[in-house]
């Protein structure tokens, strides 16, 4: 097998492992996949919509649905990448690190595997949205499906960076992911509009990678609607440039730091 073929094969098998592991405990996976949208969209989103969004000229639940989808896809992939620390705890990373493959292939496989498993999360969100009668046009669903891989890959790249920083124990890695994921959820406009955010909150909102992912998704879904200017912050091209830049940077720096941390003890 040629070098490139071997790397592709390695990425495939590492991604497949994530999927097999995810579906091996399919009951828990299914329950949690549906529990999350029910809690965040049904309970949190529903309460905000009923009590705090009277002055909004657009459908808040649709707005929140898109934000939560982007946030959840990114977070699920981040969690999957963070499981590298759990693998290390169980001595399984040794198997990866002695294999004659690039370290980037290992991380890429993890991200792709996590992205595939987060597809179930997307499916659960769409089902819950339909059940809650949140308007989702076929075009909107198509935009979500098309952008989902980009969101997952970006989330995975951020996950690599977080994992490289919080890599001491699986607990530290999970807490790191949760800390970053929730900060992003509240600051990026995933749940709460940030069009009028200013000062420190405004700055934080604009340095959150999630802001650009969420806004990119909304930019595509709300394109051509009367609410576009009220909801979307920047042009989708700006978002794409920002998302590509931070994803590549996080992936390269995160992988470098993680591998260095593994070898330079």
């Amino acid at each position, binding site marked *: *097998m040629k070098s490139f073929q071997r790397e592709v094969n390695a990425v495939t098998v590492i991604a497949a492992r994530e999927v097999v592991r995810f579906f091996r405990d399919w009951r828990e996976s299914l329950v949690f996949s549906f529990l999350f949208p029910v809690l965040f969209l049904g309970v949190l989103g529903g309460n905000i919509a009923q009590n705090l969004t009277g002055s909004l000229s657009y459908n808040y639940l649709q707005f929140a649905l898109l934000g939560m989808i982007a946030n959840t896809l990114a977070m699920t992939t981040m969690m999957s990448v963070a499981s590298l620390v759990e693998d290390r705890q169980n001595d399984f990373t040794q198997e990866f690190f002695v294999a004659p493959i690039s370290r980037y292939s290992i991380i890429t496989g993890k991200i792709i595997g996590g992205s595939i498993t987060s597809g179930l999360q997307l499916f659960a969100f769409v089902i819950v949205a339909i059940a809650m009668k949140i308007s989702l046009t076929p075009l909107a669903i198509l935009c979500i499906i098309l952008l989902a891989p980009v969101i997952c890959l970006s989330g995975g790249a951020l996950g690599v960076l977080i994992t490289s920083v919080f890599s001491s124990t699986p607990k530290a890695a999970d807490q790191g992911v949760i800390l970053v994921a929730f900060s992003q959820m509240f600051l990026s406009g995933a749940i709460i509009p940030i069009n009028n955010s200013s000062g420190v909150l405004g700055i934080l909102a604009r340095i959150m990678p999630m802001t650009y992912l969420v806004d990119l998704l909304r930019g595509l879904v709300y394109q051509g609607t009367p609410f576009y200017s009220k909801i979307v912050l920047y042009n989708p091209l700006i978002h794409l440039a920002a998302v590509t830049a931070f994803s590549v940077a996080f992936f390269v720096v995160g992988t470098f730091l993680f591998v260095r941390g593994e070898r330079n003890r």
Partner: protein
Amino acid sequence: MKRLSENSRLINQENLKENKLDTGFSIIHVSKLVKKYRKTEKAAVDNISFDVYAGELFAFLGPNGAGKTTTISILTTTLAKSSGKVIIAGNDLDSQAKEIRQDIGIIFQNPSLDLNLTAEENIRLHVSLYGIYAYKPLYRLMPKEYKDQIIGLADFLGIREDLFKPLKTFSGGMRRKLEIIRSLMHKPKILFLDEPTQGLDAVSRKSLWDYLRRVGREQETTIFLTTHYIEEAEYADRVCIINHGKIVFLGTPSEMKNRLIDKYLVLDAENRSALGSELEPFQPEAKGDGKIKVHFKQQTPQQILCRIRTPLTFMEVHTPTLEEAYVDLVEEKDEKKVLA
């Protein structure tokens, strides 16, 4: 003890410089290797040098914390060294780590298996990572060669029936066997075994050794082994003992026994003075209980006994075991450390 220490020192120097097999070429070359962990003052591996020759079974021994696993981790590219030079199968560790990984197989001290997968899935993952076979999501889609190879190995190690069961149901011994199958799937030039028989019962240990010897012979695989079981070093072509990060012995198991430990006869007779006179050429020593101790190195016990006419009332031949030789070496090093 002084004489033994002197012997050890001379032998060590001689071995460290010259010891090599006549037939093999150096497949692992380690020169002035140092590893100092972060936030520690002492080096875990302290300027060690040795060669392992192609096709040999090389045993790397030492007490807990001696530097065995650190060394094996560096050689298998999972741990960065602080300084030194390592060449494995002609590839430089600094610039050709990936090529090195292609040539080696490893059985780690702690099993590195995914307990959420079945035994076969773990192996399929391994062969795909090594690029031996293209990954297929199902066993039945894998090529016939893969199936034959895995079934053959599983048959030999007696885990064929469990191949498709989740690893969670496997005992420690079965997991070890699975790791052995996995490490041999890509036919490595060098097989690193970090305490491979740890946790195995005597029968499993024996079957593992039978298999490893067969692999070494048939596939000409070089085996680099660390172990706590000293008797396992008897199987080795050469033994290297590391203690406190430094090599204290490098040589064959018989050299270890013959040259480092006293071999002696303990004799007694009713007429001890007559016996003592007859043994005079062999520089006898009186033991605390009055019996006579005669060291032998060049001679055999029979050659000494032939000289004796005095009727004996007691005779004991003390020949060292490998374990005694090992303990002697390690303790000697520790004593030196305390004195220093």
